[in-house]
């Protein structure tokens, strides 16, 4: 659930939906609004909303499996394709288990302003009581079962972690990646999600707008990726040799899955099958198209030819930038956001990348962090009260960007230091030269 609403709006929405408190109210009295997960009767659940959310779960998970896997695998050198794909699959499974073990509870229970409580830890909660005809819902999305809400959130946790892979490919130890992501998912991702999306989170209380994860997902992943790239050091031959991508056709297929899946990412964040979700879907599409065209134009101007990789990168840039704004802006604003992101992320993946000097292999920072920053900041002036009832504030958006980026930077750095102590970070030279497919998995692509 990506919408920021004031506490008053939450109470109003809950009252309108007929959500019940954990104790049955007196006859004729309005049900008390939920302030934490609680049981409601079956008829408090919206079938349409639930169906749409379950569809969105599938769409967003497809973005990772196999969307991100293909997108990235197509861009690495042949000798590390399997490792890249294995990294994404392993992260999906690992984060899934950690989510229900602890991550969901840390992110989406009231707790305090900084992190949630332990009430959903250890695979607990998600009650479905057939005889009592009650099901538990989250206070954030009281029209759908909490199981559905938690699964939707999980798909975001998964893709955020999977995006980091793009910065570390071709040189990070598989074991180190698993250790790092385990810690990062619980100690970096979950708290940031709590700050922005839990109504009691400190950024949510300040009014920071992030409909579907511009900061929680993209700035977070992008900054983390950059920190990882600095810690790992550049790949051998970086800057001297040409690192030819394995198969840009795979990258295109992955990008296409991202584009379509993003409808679930953004429109699903409305947590309802309604007009706002429909508008979010439309603005997502417009921004993707604008981003693709803007990047293409920039590349055509600078390099003399458009490229498939540029088109794919541009559409992703547009999608990233519209993510925080998708529940708050009009189609015209989406066009602007997508176009600005296309150009900004082109610079992020070229000129800015040179300035930063890190081997962010697949431009996770240049596309996701830069795009997320562009979108988050533009949400401030472009958020329309007509659409969401919320007004944006550029200063608050900037604070949100800085807070998330700063925490991701410091948190990731500390966890990388710990991971380095535990298992080391980088494969040895021989493994790197031979390729991680053989070195880490004893597998290779066919002929």
């Amino acid at each position, binding site marked *: 659930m990506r919408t920021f609403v004031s506490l008053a709006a939450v109470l109003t929405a809950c009252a309108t939906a007929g959500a019940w408190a954990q104790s049955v109210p007196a006859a004729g009295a309005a049900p008390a609004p939920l302030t934490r997960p609680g049981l409601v009767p079956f008829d408090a659940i919206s079938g349409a909303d639930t169906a749409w959310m379950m569809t969105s779960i599938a769409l967003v998970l497809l973005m990772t499996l196999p969307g991100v896997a293909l997108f990235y695998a197509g*861009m690495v050198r042949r000798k590390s394709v399997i490792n890249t794909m294995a990294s994404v699959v392993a992260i999906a499974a690992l984060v899934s288990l950690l989510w229900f073990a602890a991550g969901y509870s840390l992110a989406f229970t009231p707790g305090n302003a900084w992190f949630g409580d332990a009430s959903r830890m250890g695979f607990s909660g998600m009650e479905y009581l057939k005889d009592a005809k009650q099901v538990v819902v989250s206070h954030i999305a009281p029209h759908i079962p909490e199981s559905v809400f938690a699964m939707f959130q999980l798909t975001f946790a998964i893709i955020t972690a999977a995006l980091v892979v793009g910065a570390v490919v071709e040189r990070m130890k598989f074991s180190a990646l698993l250790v790092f992501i385990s810690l990062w998912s619980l100690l970096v991702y979950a708290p940031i999600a709590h700050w922005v999306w839990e109504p009691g989170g400190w950024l949510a209380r300040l009014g920071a707008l992030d409909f579907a994860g511009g900061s929680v997902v993209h700035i977070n992943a992008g900054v983390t990726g950059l920190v990882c790239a600095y810690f790992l050091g550049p790949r051998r*031959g*970086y*800057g*001297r*040799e*040409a*690192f*030819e*991508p394995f198969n840009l056709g795979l990258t295109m297929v992955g990008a296409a899955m991202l584009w379509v899946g993003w409808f679930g990412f953004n429109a699903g964040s409305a947590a309802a099958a309604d007009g706002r979700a429909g508008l979010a879907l439309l603005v997502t599409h417009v921004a993707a198209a604008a981003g693709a065209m803007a990047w293409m134009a920039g*590349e055509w*101007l*600078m*390099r*003399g030819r458009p490229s498939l*990789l*540029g088109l794919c*990168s541009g559409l992703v840039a547009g999608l990233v930038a519209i993510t925080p704004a998708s529940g708050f802006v009009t189609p015209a604003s989406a066009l602007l956001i997508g176009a600005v992101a296309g150009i900004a992320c*082109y610079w992020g*993946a*070229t000129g800015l*990348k*040179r300035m930063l000097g890190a081997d962010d*292999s*697949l*431009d996770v920072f*240049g596309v996701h962090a830069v795009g997320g920053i562009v979108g988050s900041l533009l949400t401030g002036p472009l958020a329309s009260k007509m659409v969401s009832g919320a007004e944006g504030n550029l200063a608050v958006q900037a604070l949100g960007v800085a807070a998330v980026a700063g925490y991701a930077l410091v948190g990731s750095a500390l966890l990388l230091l710990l991971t380095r102590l535990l298992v080391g970070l980088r494969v040895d030279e021989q493994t790197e*030269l031979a390729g991680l497919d053989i070195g880490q998995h004893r597998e290779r692509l066919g002929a």
Partner: protein
Amino acid sequence: MLDSQKLAIAAHLHVLLRRKTGRVTDTEWMVVNQEYASEVVRFARAKAREDHHEDLAQWADKLEAVVLGTPIASVGPDSLLPSAARTAGQTALDRLRERARQEGSYVRGLR
């Protein structure tokens, strides 16, 4: 540049060295190991000076350019030297464009 093209350059130098100096080299290792490639380039240039084999020097230059990425003045029209593009009358945009084109082909970045 494709790996196959690099191998082709390495193979050509290998044949020249074998023919003109009797030295046997490892073609594949030349492409993947920069220290080895540096040594082969040094040897080929030394032999080119001593025995006046101009083609040895030229192919040594080509190998150095593709494996070690070192801009060489003797590389032909498709020189990687950014300075070659900087003339007095160029605009800033022209310089940016030239740099973007010369840094293409997946060196220092995919995009």
